[in-house]
């Protein structure tokens, strides 16, 4: 009897406290609210880390803006719920930062025509949904130029997640760049099947090193395990997503491809606040090195001066428009000619890439 009474008192107390608290905890939002949705943890030193760095830039530069974030949201219809909840809290601009959020974003967009959604990397847009992406394979190509000169075994190992066009762009750019300065280069690829599984990524890295790779690169949301494994086994690293990976393999760091979302995000938020969202919605925004969305990471001590200068020279050519990455001649690894000498790749050629370039061992998994 006493126990039951105590239980009832406890419940009553808890509810009372809850209700007594100010129910107007959500004051009417006077600030402009922006929401960011991440597929993984903000601290993965990879994909999500860089988007979050962009978010921090927005908060730093635009004090009048309030930001909501949600991390570890799976790429399924569940993402809709999170976006809806952000809209409930007054968000008028959302950044669903992972590819798999495209359909949920479009659905949410249909229900809330007054909200702007900017999706990273998608290939569909709608009246209030726009996409944006940086051609990060550009700095990967540059990294390849450096890797080709630094490697001793002429084998590159690449730890990938899924054989999607963005990953293939990276593998091909790295290989193409490396082979252009060292035609003996071969690239071996392992797909872990998951964006972030540290154990698997580390094991894949080990397997590639066992096969002779002395340069490791990766397209993983959390690239750190691969970089750490490279450090442990004294091989070189080409970073991806973030330049901050350098400290995990200082000795073996060559360079890397990194995102630079900050300036882009600030521009988008400013435009939407000022009512100029038309610039961004219903279109695909893309940019390479010249746009500033992507950058080449700093070089490590392992890269000789001469190589650094050569890479930077080519970088200038790309920024000035004198050289386009993947411009012909381009063959796939079966010998088929894809682009003739001097031919420039089209939007579809890049966005729908489904082949390996010369030098990559094996077939793209189907």
């Amino acid at each position, binding site marked *: 009897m006493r126990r039951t009474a105590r239980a009832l008192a406890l419940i009553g107390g808890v509810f009372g406290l809850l209700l007594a608290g100010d129910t107007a905890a959500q004051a009417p939002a006077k600030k402009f609210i922006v929401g960011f949705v991440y597929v993984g*943890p*903000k*601290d*993965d*030193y990879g994909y999500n*880390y860089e988007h979050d760095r962009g978010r921090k830039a927005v908060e730093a530069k635009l004090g009048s803006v309030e930001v909501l974030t949600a991390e*570890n949201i799976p790429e399924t219809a569940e993402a809709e719920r999170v976006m809806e909840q952000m809209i409930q809290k007054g968000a008028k601009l959302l950044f669903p930062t992972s590819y798999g959020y495209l359909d949920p974003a479009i659905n949410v967009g249909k229900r809330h025509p007054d909200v702007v959604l900017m999706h990273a990397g998608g290939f569909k847009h709608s009246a209030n949904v726009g996409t944006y992406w940086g051609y990060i394979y550009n700095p990967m190509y540059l990294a390849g130029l450096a890797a080709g000169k630094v490697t001793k075994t002429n084998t590159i*190992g690449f730890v990938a997640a899924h054989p999607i066009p963005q990953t293939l762009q990276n593998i091909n750019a790295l290989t193409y760049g490396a082979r252009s300065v060292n035609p003996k280069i071969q690239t*071996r*690829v*392992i*797909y*872990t*099947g998951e964006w*972030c*599984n*540290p*154990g*698997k*990524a*580390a*094991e*894949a890295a*080990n*397997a*590639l090193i*066992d*096969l002779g790779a002395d340069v490791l690169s990766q397209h993983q949301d*959390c690239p*750190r*395990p691969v970089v*750490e*494994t490279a450090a*442990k086994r004294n091989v070189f690293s080409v970073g991806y997503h973030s330049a901050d990976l350098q*400290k*995990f393999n200082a000795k073996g760091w060559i360079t890397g491809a990194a995102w630079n979302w900050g300036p882009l995000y600030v521009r988008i938020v400013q435009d939407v606040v000022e009512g100029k969202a038309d610039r961004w919605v219903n279109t695909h925004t893309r940019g390479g090195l010249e746009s500033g969305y992507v950058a080449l990471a700093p070089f490590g001590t392992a890269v000789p001066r001469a190589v650094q200068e050569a890479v930077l020279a080519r970088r200038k050519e790309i920024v000035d428009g004198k050289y386009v990455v993947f411009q012909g001649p381009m063959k796939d690894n079966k010998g088929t000619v894809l682009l003739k000498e001097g031919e420039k790749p089209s939007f579809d050629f890049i966005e729908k890439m489904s082949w390996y370039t010369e030098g990559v*061992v*094996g*077939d793209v*998994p189907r």
Partner: protein
Amino acid sequence: MLASVLEGGIRAGTPILYATLGEVIAERAGVVNLGVEGAILVGACAGFITTAQTQSPLLGIAAAALAGGVASLVHAFMVVTVRANQIASGLALMFLCLGVTSFVGRPYVAVKINAVAPLAVPGLSDLPVVGRLLFSHDVLVYGAYLLAPLIWLILFYTKWGLALRAVGERQAVAFASGLPTAVVQYAAVVCGGVLAGVAGAHLSLAYARSWVEGMSNGRGFIAVALVIFATWHPLRAVLGAVIFGAVFALQLQIQARGVALSPYFLDMTPYLLTLFGLLLLARTQRHTMPEGLKEVFEGLK
């Protein structure tokens, strides 16, 4: 290629081996702990945080062991004192550890640590094939493979081992003969947790060298299945762990060589193998299973 698969097997099998050995101890005393998955996570997290703060991997391993033991203490309490259902309590522990470690570990996902380095054994490491295969790993790997025969010796050739097994076989009789069965079971479960914690330490400090929530990815459950597969015998557990690790490594190695086998089918093989083993050895297992477990596993029979 066989050599690198085996090497990968030893490497990947280490956390599984620790967890399996720990679970063997617990189950030999009559307690099934499905919360091993949680204990591994707790160990991985605690070990990582400690190493991050102190820059000492050794302290990290110690912290991991402690954390794993404490987590399993909860399970021991639920099972031995409160007499709750073992399976349910184990799963509850798993959920709790998953939640707590995700919460506590968040600020540490970004941190760099002074990880456990590979340790060469003077003389042995330079042997032609065997050197690279067996002696180029880190201290935790060596520890696991030394631990297995040690546990075997203790279980079957010492009086403590006898007491443990007695409690697992016939708890009532053991109690009547004066053994403090509750203490023995607590000790066994906590021991199992300590080893699971070390498994976690290997994961986060030596193998992946980072912390991500949920990073144990089912290794704890594999350990529980392996215990049955190994018929509760520590030495056979070594075999099981290496096989598991090898298949895990094989799947990735095969890909790198351009062989077009689906990695997902390959990934399935350890689980299917275990299931198959369970089926084949079912008869033997029923004979070798510690009697006290029969009630847990067979419930209605």
